């Protein structure tokens, strides 16, 4: 960290340095220096911050701005940059979409929520809200009365143009850019479509069966979780985590609890930590099971879904005995876990571990070796390592492109550093690789479970925590490994019982951003293959 600070201070003597609650260096710069700093961050060999983790838009009341979090895949270091927009009424910041491709999507999100215009971003439209939406909901002075933005059954307005903003003589100038040419044959796939795994919408320009361009529309399940969190107490914000990526509910809970516990200085007992990790890995297996099933169903092999759901049901049984629910568990909580384990938990997990290898073998037998399946998946939707990093494709999809991005290894949290497991990576980067990585990850998760199941220590499962938690002023950022990639939480607290800003950085949002890039030139059927193999969860990307 000291090196980064020295290097940046050398390049930008005017930058200010602080440290956040998780010991990540925070750099504050002026807007006019920002793009130059971004370039050095990306290109300087000593910094090499090639992975843009998230951009959190901020409303500091006196000014609007952004908090950027970066990670270097070469040095495994992190840093964050805080940039303020100069003018609250007409805020703008320079875009970094030319350096990190994922920034294009992240900046659209910030624009949507805060109204900060990003200069030279090639696609400055609203992301989640409709074109005619009035106001920017995450600003502190936003008026959310339904009279301003009434619900309507009218079709929303749609254009084939997007806006690009330039800076000319210190003034922001708006120009229009064409998305689809008027001669393009545009098919609308979604939001209600069996293959989009929820309510995602692709406007797809095709030439025969070949895809020319895809424009992704989100927000059909945008529920405004981040805004809701700002009006709730810390304990109350937890339950939204189950409903983002409903397969990684346990992991997201875990991640958010880690942030709060770090901020409040709460030590969690060893027993609770082991339980949390076991639950995480169980839900990872359940999630990958469902992925395999639905993916095969997308490819036309419906029967596989029923075989994989069989294992998933077994895992849900284990969850249900302990947590009392099949899907929205609300299990991990600040200070530990809600309940103690069910008495036959260990026995059930062992039973699962016994049947799992046979099942995985069966899946491989039915599907992986199938000549049609190979033809459909191999070489389809290739994503190179550089692109995976630039588009911030983490999780199994990133690891299939040979990017070792497992947060359990890179930034071990909880007890992961003590556990023996391998990070599964593959070099092909195609849909088949993404499929196989998940298959192998189930084995690794089972390995973790096997290590823990006989070693659950005794002790209290929940330490005493005040009913109403009050966190000190400060910022915290935590990354955990969800089922679909790195899940980040950025918390800014103003010392009250409610979060001032809770930014959720979901792994699925970048996945949607990469669809256009990797489907170009492939067939419509490949869009389904690729979309399925990326395994995005739409409520997670929309929040």
């Amino acid at each position: 960290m000291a090196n980064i600070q020295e290097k940046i201070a050398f390049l930008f003597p005017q930058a200010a340095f602080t440290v956040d609650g998780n010991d990540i260096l925070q750099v504050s710069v002026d807007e006019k220096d920002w793009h130059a700093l971004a370039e050095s961050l990306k290109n300087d060999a000593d910094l090499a911050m090639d992975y843009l983790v998230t951009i959190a838009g901020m409303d500091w009341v006196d000014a609007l701005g952004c908090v950027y979090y970066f990670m270097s895949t070469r040095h495994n270091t992190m840093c964050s940059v805080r940039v303020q927009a100069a003018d609250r009424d007409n805020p703008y910041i320079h875009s970094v979409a030319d350096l990190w491709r994922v920034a294009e999507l992240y900046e659209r999100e910030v624009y949507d929520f805060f109204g900060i215009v990003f200069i030279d971003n090639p696609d400055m439209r609203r992301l989640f809200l409709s074109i005619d939406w009035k106001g920017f909901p995450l600003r502190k002075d936003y008026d959310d009365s339904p009279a301003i933005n009434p619900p309507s059954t009218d079709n929303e307005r749609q254009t084939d143009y997007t806006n690009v903003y330039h800076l000319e003589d210190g003034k922001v100038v708006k120009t229009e850019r064409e998305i689809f040419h008027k001669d393009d044959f545009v098919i609308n796939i979604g939001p209600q479509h069996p293959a989009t795994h929820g309510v995602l919408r692709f406007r797809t320009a095709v030439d025969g069966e070949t895809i020319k361009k895809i424009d992704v529309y989100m927000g059909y399940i945008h529920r405004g979780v981040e805004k809701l969190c700002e009006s709730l107490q810390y304990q109350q914000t937890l339950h939204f985590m189950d409903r983002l990526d409903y397969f990684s509910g346990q992991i997201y809970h875990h991640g958010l609890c880690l942030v709060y516990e770090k901020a409040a200085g709460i030590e969690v007992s060893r027993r609770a930590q082991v339980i949390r990790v076991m639950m995480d890995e169980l839900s990872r297996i359940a999630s990958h099971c469902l992925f395999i099933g639905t993916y095969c169903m997308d490819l036309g092999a419906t029967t596989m879904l029923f075989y994989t759901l069989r294992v998933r049901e077994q895992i849900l049984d284990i969850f249900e005995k302990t947590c009392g629910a099949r899907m929205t568990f609300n299990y991990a909580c600040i200070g530990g876990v809600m309940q103690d384990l069910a008495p036959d938990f260990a026995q059930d997990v062992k039973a699962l571990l016994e049947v799992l290898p046979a099942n995985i073998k069966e899946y491989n037998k039915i599907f992986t070796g199938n000549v049609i399946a190979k033809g459909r998946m191999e070489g389809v939707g290739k994503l190179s390592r550089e692109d995976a990093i630039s588009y911030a494709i983490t999780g199994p999809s990133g690891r299939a492109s040979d990017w070792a991005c497992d947060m359990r290894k890179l930034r071990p949290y909880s007890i992961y550093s003590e556990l023996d497991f391998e990070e599964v990576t593959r070099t092909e980067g195609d849909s088949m690789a993404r499929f196989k990585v998940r298959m192998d990850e189930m084995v690794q998760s089972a390995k973790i479970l096997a290590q823990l199941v006989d070693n659950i220590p005794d002790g209290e499962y929940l330490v005493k925590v005040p009913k109403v938690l009050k966190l000190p002023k400060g910022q915290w950022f935590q990354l955990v490994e969800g089922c679909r990639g790195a899940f980040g939480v950025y918390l800014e607290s103003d010392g009250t019982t409610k979060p001032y800003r809770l930014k959720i950085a979901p792994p699925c949002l970048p996945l949607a951003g990469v669809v256009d890039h990797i489907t170009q030139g492939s067939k419509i059927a490949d869009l389904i293959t690729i979309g399925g193999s990326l395994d995005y969860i739409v409520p997670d990307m929309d929040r």
Partner: protein
Amino acid sequence: MEVTTKSMPYEAFKDNEYIESLVKEIQESGTNVIVGSFDKLINWGRSNSLWPLTFATSCCGIEFVSLGAARFDMARFGWEVARASPRQADFMMVAGTIVYRMIPVFRRLYDQLAEPKYVIACGSCAISGGPFRKSYHVAKGIEDIVPVDVFVPGCPPRPEAMIYGIMQLSRKVKVEKFFGGVNRQERRQEFLESHPVEPDAAD
């Protein structure tokens, strides 16, 4: 008259008074014997062949998948023919939150369903907005958008609850009338008049 379905005992259903009031209403209107038996045949067909539209927005949709899987197997009741095209489906299981941006799409899907069509509001989000009720972008229940036949509470409801919900729908369908008399279709007409949709969205 005991209205039951799928070899379920009558006592197993909880809101029998409601169905009985419907039956009473129908009996009061009186029917012709021939027409009445036709109605019975049609209702038998309709109530036993409810094809869902594959429509899910969030968590409840996954439980709907589980409903089709081996443990709960909705195929037993003939509900497994999930159609992706709204023209061919009979009922819509609104599984998940409906947000403002989704409302026109959702309403349009409903308009595209072929009559007779039914709606099940599944999960607390669809019923009232659920945990997201206070959000700036979430519809506070789908009742204001489309007429709802059955509500299935839960977050998400267990598959058993969904089976129960569809069974209740099946019972409601059983006491419908195709030829004249009391028909819940009229109420839908009223609803649609009070919640009009723009002409260009309907075609």
